[in-house]
């Protein structure tokens, strides 16, 4: 993995990202703005499931209001994230936080897609004969917000792998 990271870091695309001083801060800034959009969109959906926000609107309306923003911002986030990895592959690939982040990210995206589908269809997520969501659906929405929170924390922790993970750090 380290050899691959070193090869990638020596590539011309990586060199361009590294050598132009404003590219990495620009990409990171866009990445952070998109975190705001993704996190707040998923928070709005979760708060609606919990019955704490926009209860005057049907769930479908809230989903249609925020889900497109969430998915679009996720795509931009993935794009800027990929470029950041391309720019500093050794920094990312040798950080334990990066790999756990990727794992949680995959889990977050998959479960949001599946969960969103279940919420929209309304099957098995509503209390029978009521518009209210079941306890399981509510727990899942809290879990997803917690998952996104962990992803953000791990993202920042990439810069401090040894300090955060100590002996577990992948830093040589």
């Amino acid at each position, binding site marked *: 993995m380290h050899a691959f990271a070193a090869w990638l870091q020596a590539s011309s695309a990586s060199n361009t990202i590294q050598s132009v*001083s404003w590219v*990495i*801060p*620009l990409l*990171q*800034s866009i990445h*952070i*703005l998109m*975190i*705001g*959009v993704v*996190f*707040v*969109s998923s*928070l*709005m959906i979760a708060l609606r499931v919990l019955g704490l*926000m*926009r209860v005057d*609107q049907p769930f479908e309306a809230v989903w249609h*209001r925020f889900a497109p923003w969430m998915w679009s911002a996720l795509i931009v986030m993935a794009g800027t994230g990929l470029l950041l990895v391309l720019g500093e592959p050794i920094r990312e690939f040798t950080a334990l936080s990066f790999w756990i982040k990727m794992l949680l990210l995959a889990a977050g995206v998959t479960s949001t897609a599946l969960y969103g589908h279940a919420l929209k269809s309304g099957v098995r997520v509503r209390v029978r004969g009521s518009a209210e969501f079941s306890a399981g659906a509510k727990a899942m929405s809290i879990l997803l917000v917690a998952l996104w*929170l962990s992803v*953000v*924390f791990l*993202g*920042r*922790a990439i*810069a*401090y792998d040894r*300090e*955060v993970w100590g002996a577990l750090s992948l830093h040589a």
Partner: protein
Amino acid sequence: MRTSVKAMPIVEAIHVLAAATVFGTIFIVDLRLLGLPDTRRPVTVVCREMLRLTWGAFFVALCAGLLMFAANAHTYYGNTAFRLKMLALLGAGVNMLLFHRLTFRNVAAWDQNAPVPMAARLAGATSMILWVSVIFLARWIGFTKGYDFRIPPNTHINFQF
């Protein structure tokens, strides 16, 4: 805090997350002020719902930010990106104050299903630009401030272990 290797990443992560939440929630209000996605939801309701989250997140970001500043006050103070960020924050505050004191007073006339007046649209657009600038400038600080390793005068350091 400089000497605690674990404090910085935690405080920074909280700061990033809280700042992203401030941006995300205020963005929803700004969009509504621009009449987006539509004018069906009352401006007063959108403001009431979002701004409590915005203020909560802002308070958290402020606390974490103050801790970060305290750990490296001298270098932050002299950093241009930091100064510009503070200016942008001040601008966002003034913009919000003017909006609430002047434009928002006759909100009843354009609260729902009505075109948003130009002054409110302008306030929304200004807020968007300023908050995006705050995030960009904030990220720039990390790439320009360097670190202050100087030992404060009159500090006694015992090198005997």
